[in-house]
């Protein structure tokens, strides 16, 4: 191609570039938004893995189940958006594109909240159980569980760990806590009763459990029980 012919071509493409140039800002913004969305989705995935490592596959599976819907929605929206752009690059300059991007952007926080909520609930459940066991242990005379309890409070108040170190710290804490209360030998049912009773939500039927009555008897805890009808 000669120099003039090449120049001719370049001139011809200038107009298109200029038109696209108008969309550059939108494209850039959208790209940023999508990047953030991607990062958020990735972060959610990491959070699910953390939940899984800390609270086990079941909890994680529950969480994944909750997240799957939003992920499908994201994929659908993204797929549609891409199709529209490919069909008409100028689509990105239209309001619909902005709406689509807004929709996409709105999915990321919800997913993140789901993960965070799942983490918090799993954490609360676990800590509740531990506190009950700690309480059983203390009732059983295994010594003061205050130190453990304070540690438990600190872990529970923390957000979803974002680093491996934090995740490992939480995992190790729970291992250490489980080990500490395991010496009391309280079953799960007992521990739950004790923990519920301490919260005032134990059921009278729990008293039907021989292990519960044996424990109350053993540690002469009857007089400390109150009955409440709600």
């Amino acid at each position, binding site marked *: 191609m000669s120099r003039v012919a090449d120049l001719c071509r370049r001139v*011809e493409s*200038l107009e298109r570039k200029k038109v696209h*140039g108008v969309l550059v*800002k939108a*494209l850039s913004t959208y790209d940023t938004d999508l990047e953030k969305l991607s990062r958020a989705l990735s972060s959610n995935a990491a959070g699910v893995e953390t939940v899984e490592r800390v609270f086990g596959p079941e909890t994680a599976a529950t969480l994944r189940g909750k997240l799957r819907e939003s992920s499908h929605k994201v*994929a659908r929206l993204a797929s549609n*958006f*891409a199709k529209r752009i490919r069909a008409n690059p100028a689509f990105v300059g239209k309001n619909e594109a902005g709406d689509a991007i807004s929709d*996409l952007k709105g999915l990321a926080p919800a997913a993140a909240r789901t993960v965070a909520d799942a983490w918090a609930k799993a954490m609360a459940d676990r800590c509740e159980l531990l506190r009950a066991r700690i309480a059983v242990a203390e009732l059983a005379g295994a010594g003061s569980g205050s130190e453990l309890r304070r540690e438990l409070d600190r872990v529970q108040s923390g957000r979803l760990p974002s680093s491996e170190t934090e995740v490992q710290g939480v995992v190790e804490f729970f291992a250490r806590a489980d080990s500490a209360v395991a010496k009391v030998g309280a079953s799960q049912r007992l521990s739950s009763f004790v923990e519920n009773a301490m919260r005032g939500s134990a059921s009278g039927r729990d008293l039907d459990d021989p292990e519960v009555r044996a424990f109350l008897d053993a540690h002469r805890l009857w007089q400390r029980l109150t009955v409440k009808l709600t």
Partner: protein
Amino acid sequence: MPETGPMKACWTPERVATVVTTIAKMDASRSHYFLASHSPITGILDERLQRPLDEESLFKAVFDRSRAETLAVIWGEPGSGKSHLIHWLKLRTEYALKHGELDTMLPVLVQRRSGNLKDALQQLVEQLPPEFQKYMDPVRKALDRINADTAREMLANALSIELLPQTRQERGLAPLDRRLGKVRELCLSPGTRGWLCRPDGVIDREVRRLTGTERQGGEPREARFEFSEFTAITPQHLRGNSAAAMEVVDEIEFEPELAHQVAAAFNDALPFAVGGLTGLGGTTLREVFDAIRSDLKASKRWLALFIEDVSVMSDLDSDVLRAVEPQSNPKLCRLVAVLGMTDGGKNRLRDNELGRIHLLVQMRRSVEEWRDSEEAVAQFAARYLNAVRLREDDVRKLAAHRRTGGDVNRSACDGCQVREGCFPAFGSVELEGVQIGLFPFTRPAPRKLLVALDTSKGGIRQNQRGFLDQVLRPAVQELEQFEERSFPDPTSFSVRLDEPLHWAPFTARNCVNWSIEDKDRLRFLAQAWIEGRSEQDYASLLTPLLAPLGFEPFTGGQVAPRRVQPPQPQLRPDKEPPKPETPEPPKDGLKKAGNIQNALADWIARPDGVLEHDGPIRDLLLKFVKSCLPVENEWGLPVREFKRLLGNKKSSVYVEGQRSQPAAVVFELKFERSEETRALIEALAYFEHVGSASWSFKSGEHYKRVVSRWLRRNGRAFLQRLEPAGLDRERPVRAAIAVLCLAAAVRRRKALPKSRTEALDEIFTPFEVDPVLLKPGTDWERRLKTLRTSHEELRQFVLAELDVPQGMTSDATNFVDPRPVLEAIPAFADTWQVPDLPQDYSTSHWKARYEPARLCEYFVDLPALLATEREELKRHLEMIRRVVDTPSSGAPQAVRKYLKEMGELVRTLREQKLVLPDDAFEAVKPRLAEAAESAGEVEAAITADSSTGVEPILTFAPEPFSSLAAVLGTCQQFVERVEVEVDRTEKRLTAEGDPDALQKSLLARLDALAAGPAEEGER
């Protein structure tokens, strides 16, 4: 008079020396010669009574017995005869004393002689009887005193006293301007005193006059203070002066007119100062005279004092006048004083001094009347000639007769054997009944020679003294000249005579085979010895003189000698003028022709003779050469060159020895000093002035032949002088034709046609438009512009040089000789070289003629001149190749393709609304298609570029090519500009974010998101 051979002188050389002298012969041994040659002086005027006097009546008036004392002053210009008259009075007085007419009188004559006071007083002393010598002691003491070395200082001191206000008042002089109150300080202050007493200053000259050390020769030089004496004081004399003297000097410097007053004051003071210096001033001189007169009275005698020129007595003239003025003193003897005085001296006399003079006699009219009379001058000459011829005893007898008041009554011609032949030939004058022959003069000759005396030469005046010195003596002192047939010798006389009219034809007819010397003598005779104005006059009046003066007879046939009539009062012979055969010449025609003849005569007479009044002569010659030189017959000299060189200015004609010396003359047609030139000019003068520009006048045929002969002999040679000396005349023509060929090639951008006729037409076609060049502003372009502007001049030069003249009236060229052109065209076509023209063609008077041809020098080195054009062609080609991005082969196609693409670019830009204002490209944009059509010029340019000779470059038409190159160059610049703009735009777009990239990134992210559920699902 002998029948054969010339006449001999009838006198001796000794007698000439004795008689013909301007110093009065007043001693007793020679006074008879004075009387014998003395001519009665006429025209003497009693100025008071305005009454004419003759000598005798003047004598009687001087010695009028009714007056006890007489003071007479005779004044006139030097040489007017006052001294002669005083001498005559002295002799007449002595005669009267001797014959008892007067008695007891003592005559004393003071002659001028050496012209100083000392000598004058010495004469007075010597003529008094011994017993009177004692009265001269004061005079002797005065003479001794003024011999002192300190005379100048003493005179300066005396002047300072005379300049005192009170002294001036005593002298009756008006007071000086108050600013000159201290003027006497000039005489006292060392500096200005030194200036006044400097050698050859007024004071010095006055002292030398007093002491008799004045220069010898000439008239006594009067010492008078002039304006410049007080305005030209040298700087060295302005130093060392008193404040008072400098005050006067400053006043004069501030107002120079005061110098006139100062000079007048000094002149007033000078006589008194001289008197004071000599001791003769004041009353001293008068006391001496009074004492003498007193003693003469006692011895019953009286005094007659004749002073030839009282002016010689320095500034004592007033004292002398006072000493001899009438006193009516009974103790003093009678005194008759006759004082001669120059007109200058007389004019200085004050009114009171003039009032004491009894007789104031003026001599001026005497000279004028004498000079105006042919008879008086002839008689004057005759008296001297007679005295020269007479034996001494006859002279004495004649003198004795003249003392009685008679005139010449003895003639040496009485009884002369040749008288019968001499008188008719030379004429005679009658004096008191005797005839005196005028040989070797004729009757008109003395006066004609007298009035022809050349007064421009020092000391020559047209008076009696001049006649004796310059006319009579040269005529008679060389006796051999008569036997040697060389009289009259024109070179012996200081005269300026009119040339004889119609002389040349007369001599051509009558003096065949005569020697030049004889022709000169005869012309001189025709000028001064006769009154003739025509050939007939010459023949009749000169024929009688031929044999006596040793000439051959005239050769033109027998001309009857006209008998010389006895002396007649009228100048012209009493005969009827001849009937005119031809029209009368213009009134002043003969006079003008005569003036030219006179000028020519002086010019041809001597090798260093100057041609005076050469303007009219050169006008004649210019008119002659312009109209008569055979230019038409001499091919090669352009008429316009002929006219240019000769022009209308007479400065283009130069006559050897002419008075005028025109400055900065480029060309002179020189006429050498020769008889042939003289004859030509004379003939032209007659043609112009006598014939009124025709030959229809008497002797016209003769003059016509003179001119024709001159033209035959000199015409071609004179024309040759207008041509370049020793140079090839065709060389500049060939060079000019080569330049015209070059011009035609450049104009046409083609080689000259093969056909000679067409080529001839082409080289003479005007070069009217400046040629287009690839590279403007070069030396080549400047020279081509010069060629274009000078083309017409060059063309005219060639036409003029090749002109075959058809007459002199027009400069137009009707026919040319084409041969040199037809030879020069192929020469140029073969070599494409312009020949050089040597510097010899740029010198002398032909420089302007060949100036147009010098244009060839501009184009001698064509290869060098065309180098820039060739480089530019190469540069254009390289540029085109670079632009269209192609090697040389196939360039035209590449150019067309490029230009087509440029068209596409223009369209794309328009469609894309990309506006790039570019005036240059906007100008060429409409020409893209046209340029594409001229793409073939590239091929021609490649051909020219690949050649080494000048022809392809000269004949390469650069206009379409350069236009194409310009279009391509502009396109290239535009493309570059567009590229820059596109680059800039693209960069700007890229800097903000490449939409394509962004879109790509966005899509990738979307695609990733879209794939997300599957990935999640896989987990």
